[in-house]
């Protein structure tokens, strides 16, 4: 290994150690009964926090289902509206394009709670205020721009050459999309969908503002546990909120890499 690579490897390991450190108290704390100063490990271990969380009375599993339901709906809607928008922004020129780009990226750069606070009265009037649809819509507003941006960049990189060739060979537009565009769009589509899904799963303030606490997603049920006194419970709640998100992200990463490795091996 060259000296430069060796130095970079060292710095990388130091940075990664720093990234790993905050995970430790939460992971260890979630299975501890007593972890007083100055112990580096708990004095007493316990699975009690987990027994509580998995108890039907704690409403954790239904809340997880609620979160996944809303997030799945938001992701599906985001894909449907972002594909055409990404294509238009990435491959077409039209009057007012700069303005449209600004409008689309607005929720990325500005906090959404001002608009959501402002919208709440309107949501009430149209009967959307305490419903999954209203909450989903609010989640969509803050997550879709990331997907549009990712797809626009992907479409811009892909160009239109292959699609045009497929058309001249007689393929119908939907065939062109399914067999030519979609496979090459997949990495951007997956990473955008992942961002939208995780973004929706993690929303707390906006869900609270849009539903007044009526729609009980996982963060709405678990966050009060984290500000209450029981450290073990709070740590376990953190793991429940964090672990699925990280696992989903890692498995999609593996899936995308595996898919491309297989394609390379097969020469397709």
């Amino acid at each position, binding site marked *: 290994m060259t000296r430069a690579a060796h130095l970079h490897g060292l710095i990388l390991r130091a940075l990664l150690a720093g990234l790993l450190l905050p995970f430790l108290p939460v992971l260890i704390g979630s299975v501890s009964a007593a972890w007083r100063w100055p112990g580096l490990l708990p004095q007493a271990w316990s699975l009690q926090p987990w027994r509580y969380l998995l108890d039907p009375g704690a409403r954790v599993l239904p809340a997880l289902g609620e979160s996944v339901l809303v997030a799945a709906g938001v992701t599906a809607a985001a894909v449907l509206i972002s594909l055409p928008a990404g294509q238009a*922004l990435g491959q077409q020129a039209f009057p007012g394009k700069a303005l449209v780009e600004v409008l689309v990226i607005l929720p990325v750069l500005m906090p959404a709670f001002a608009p959501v606070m402002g919208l709440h009265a309107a949501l009430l009037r149209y009967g959307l205020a305490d419903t999954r649809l209203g909450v989903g819509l609010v989640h969509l507003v803050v997550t879709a721009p990331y997907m549009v941006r990712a797809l626009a960049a992907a479409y811009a990189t892909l160009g239109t050459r292959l699609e045009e060739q497929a058309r001249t060979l007689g393929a119908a537009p939907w065939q062109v999309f399914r067999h030519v565009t979609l496979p090459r769009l997949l990495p951007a589509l997956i990473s955008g969908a992942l961002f939208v899904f995780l973004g929706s799963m993690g929303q707390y303030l906006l869900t609270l503002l849009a539903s007044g606490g009526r729609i009980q997603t996982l963060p709405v049920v678990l966050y009060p546990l984290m*500000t209450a006194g029981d450290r073990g419970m709070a740590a376990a709640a953190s793991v429940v909120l964090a672990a699925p998100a990280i696992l989903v992200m890692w498995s999609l990463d593996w899936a995308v890499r595996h898919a491309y490795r297989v394609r390379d091996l097969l020469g397709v």
Partner: protein
Amino acid sequence: MAYLRLLPVLVLVSSLFVAGLALAVVQSLGYLPALGMTRLTLAYYGQVLQDPAFQASLCLTLRVAALASAGACSAGTALAVCLAQVGRAAGWQRLLAQAPLALPHLVVGYMVLLLLTPTGLVARLLHAVGLLAGPDAFPALVHDRFGWGMVVAYVFKEAPFAAVLIYPLVGGATRRLQEAAATLGASGWQAFRHVAWPLIWPGVLTAWLIIFAYTVGAFEIPYVLGRTYPRALPVLAYDKYVSIDLADRPAAMALAMLLTTITAAVAWAYMRLAGGAGDRLAQVRSGRLD
């Protein structure tokens, strides 16, 4: 035809966002027919701007955002450069570097809380190696006036995000150009300063602006790691919004709009910059150079 494709996004996302903003503006000017308030006035803005709590909040929020984004960009650039140089980084290194991206912000706040309290893990580690006498000797990093805990939390959460944004700029294309410059006689430093850096710095600045804009308006980390005074601006606005006294509502909206104005200014700066950065990289990628 392009407009048709953009219609769903513009209707479902942009118009809702803009309409919400407009409603917030109107309410901040005192228009709340439900409470019988129908006269437009700037009085609530005046009330908020003169409030010392607001001024303290503003200082805290801007200070934390500036430090957090600078720290996250530095760490993120280091992460991106090291990952690029090390080449086929072991899978677990890449996975660990990505992990904070998936964490919800309140969880990040809580993780850093457990890490940095006077009886937290860092204090215990320092005590175990003999560098710390006891919890009293540990500096106040959470619930402190300066906001250090929040800065650490944001750096932890956003450094991988900055790394993701910057990684494409320090990868193969840039290094090949540096090597080409070296074959033409440039020293290592010259190759970096005059070839690589002009390609990298717009991306770093873009990442800084995005993270700064986000941090100014973020709620959850200050909610967990901040003090009751001064509160970060978003927490201040939220507290006023959920206040039992509905007459506080216009002031809450005024706070929210002042916050939005700050991020709008940063967004404008980002807009000016983002076009340039994208063009540069596209030129490098397609082989055209000027």
